[in-house]
């Protein structure tokens, strides 16, 4: 294993140096959250379609037993995170931005935490075929653990089809407050490297870069040490400058390879496959013990938390229990954010469960804005364009969105906006730009959808008109033909014929 010189990195346009706020949680220690009485496991913890429950109310389930099966190619299975009894399968609120509710499987735990007997480690993982590995990953319900929860199987399949040449492990973790990947790297560098090697072998890739942000020297040291156990010539460590959003998937690909992920595309379109370091650790765990994805590391932090730190949390544990384990809330806890302070989702209730997407829980501190300041008109200072990591011009997008020029938004790159939130932070007019672009994207999608529907209705209507016109024409032609063909003397002739018939008179 080698480390690459930083000067070979490509320069990301824009970006911000943000205050870290990481010291309070990044102690390197990972604590365990005890198993609560009730687990709430949504069937939709990932990007894509919801999984289908395969257990019924009253069933006994074991730790690691599948309870919902992936539905379609873009989905992920869900497993019981401890043993117990299914007491309900019902729609409940879930922590996510787009959807607010999903079917949840509620498990009353028995405290025994009995493992399922069907857990199957991968035999001889470093020689596993791609098919075997993909199947095992699919069954284990592994998703990207960086926060987006993109199903790993779908990503790997796409990568195999697209023919990628480079695996990139994302240990950048550029958003403030979050330190779960840092904690994982410090503690489980060996496992991460092992998982990496499994993926490299299975996919037949010859190079891998592990990107680690330069503000994480302990993690770097842990990898250097782990290299003596699980070192590999194909793997390179790369220090990434501490600039937000270097850890964005497309941004990291650009930094490391100089390849630009095309608009609307994926990193695999330019030969790169990006996984979070946590995903590699989950693959290693699966290979060694057969354990599916039933827990993750969550950073619990913020001024509103008494004992900030990193916790290994089983999926489905209510956030309130996690917060209690972290010493409970302080008087600063006004807001609860899942994810980072730049892109996270504000939750209104801590009864919601921890899901696969939950990398960080922040109870707000003073650095987090407590109310939107009054917005002023844009003064076109262009700072938002200067720091935009995809070189958009947010000021132009905002104008097009606000003043009803929806159709120019596509040309201005609305769909290329990664919603990183940088523009909000530099805007002297305090305009909620990122939220405006989220709204604009939705409005645009609806508009396009409605136009497509209208277009289809127009076509069907016009074809129907043509058909009816054709029918009417045909009918008119037939009437005309009968009229033309009819002999005006026909009746007289028939009568005459009748009269002339022998015996006709006798009737």
């Amino acid at each position, binding site marked *: 294993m080698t480390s690459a010189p930083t000067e070979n990195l490509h320069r990301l346009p824009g970006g911000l140096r943000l205050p870290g706020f990481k010291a309070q949680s990044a102690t390197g220690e990972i604590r365990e959250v005890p198993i609560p009485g009730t687990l709430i496991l949504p069937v939709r913890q990932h990007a894509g379609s919801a999984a289908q429950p395969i257990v019924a109310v009253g069933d006994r389930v074991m730790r690691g037993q599948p309870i919902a099966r992936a539905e379609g190619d873009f989905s992920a299975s869900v497993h019981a995170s401890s043993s117990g009894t299914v007491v309900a399968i019902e729609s409940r609120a879930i922590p996510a931005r*787009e959807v607010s509710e999903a079917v949840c499987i509620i498990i009353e735990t028995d405290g025994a935490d009995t493992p399922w007997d069907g857990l199957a480690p991968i035999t001889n993982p470093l020689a596993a075929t791609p098919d075997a590995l993909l199947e095992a990953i699919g069954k284990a319900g592994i998703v990207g653990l960086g926060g987006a929860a993109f199903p790993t199987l779908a990503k790997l399949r796409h990568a195999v089809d697209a023919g990628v040449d480079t695996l990139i492990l994302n240990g950048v973790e550029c958003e403030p407050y979050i330190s779960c990947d840092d904690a994982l790297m410090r503690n489980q560098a060996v496992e991460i490297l092992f998982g990496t090697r499994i993926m490299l072998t299975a996919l037949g890739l010859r190079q891998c870069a592990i990107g680690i942000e330069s503000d994480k020297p302990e993690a770097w040291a842990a990898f250097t040490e782990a290299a003596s156990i699980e070192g590999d010539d194909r793997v390179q460590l790369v220090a990434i400058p501490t600039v937000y959003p270097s850890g964005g998937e497309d941004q990291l690909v650009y930094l490391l390879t100089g390849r630009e992920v095309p608009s609307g595309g994926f990193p695999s379109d330019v030969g790169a496959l990006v996984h979070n370091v946590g995903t590699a650790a989950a693959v290693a765990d699966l290979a060694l013990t057969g354990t599916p994805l039933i827990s993750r590391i969550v950073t619990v932090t913020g001024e509103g938390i008494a004992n900030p730190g990193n916790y290994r949390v089983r999926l489905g544990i209510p956030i309130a229990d996690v917060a209690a384990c972290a010493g409970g809330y302080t008087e600063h806890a006004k807001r609860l954010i899942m994810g980072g302070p730049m892109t996270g989702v504000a939750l209104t209730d801590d009864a919601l469960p921890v899901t696969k997407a939950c990398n960080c829980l922040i109870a707000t501190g003073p650095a987090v804005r407590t109310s939107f300041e009054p917005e002023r008109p844009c003064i076109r200072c262009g700072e938002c364009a200067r720091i935009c990591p995809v070189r958009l011009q947010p000021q132009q997008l905002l104008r097009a969105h606000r003043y009803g020029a929806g159709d120019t938004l596509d040309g201005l790159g609305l769909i290329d906006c990664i919603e990183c939130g940088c523009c909000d932070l530099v805007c002297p007019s305090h305009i909620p730009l990122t939220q405006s672009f989220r709204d604009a994207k939705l409005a645009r999608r609806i508009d396009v*959808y409605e136009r497509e529907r209208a277009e289809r*209705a*127009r076509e*069907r*209507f016009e074809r129907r008109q043509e058909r009816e016109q054709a029918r009417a024409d045909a009918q008119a032609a037939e009437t005309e033909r009968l009229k033309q063909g009819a002999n005006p003397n026909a009746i007289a002739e028939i009568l005459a014929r009748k009269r002339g018939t022998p015996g006709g008179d006798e009737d």
Partner: protein
Amino acid sequence: MDIVSAIAVLAGIALVAGLALTLAARTLQRDADDVVERINAELPQTQCAQCGFPGCRPYAEAIAQGDVDINRCPPGGDATIAALARLLDRDIIALDASLPPPAPPGVAIIDEERCIGCARCLPACPVDAIVGAHQFMHTVVEDLCTGCELCIAPCPVDCLEMVATDDNAERAA
């Protein structure tokens, strides 16, 4: 004398400019079909005929002819009026008061218990969104239905009703 020549010059300019404008208006007149297409593109294609024309395109033709105002499309509502006003450079006006107010977007559904298979709703649908045949149960292809409500009246057993569609936001997502 100066005044006379000034008036003469101004009148001359007015005359020349007037002639040029008239000529331009005649020769540069936009292709009528093109205008109809562009108006039609702004209409919601519900084909509901509430405007008094047998579909969106006929209404578009009538607007292009200048026979009718741009405020006769209830499904399109204010958004369509605004779009037409911008396209045709007219003032934005309110929806014609004699027309029903815009209803939330919806689709027709057939209560399959009650449907007797009379097929009378089939020809009423302007976009062929109802499938069925005599003596067979009918059903509305929800994805194709424009919510025009034209199928409601012909049904002898009132088995068709309108239901509001889910938020288009979710459908578009």
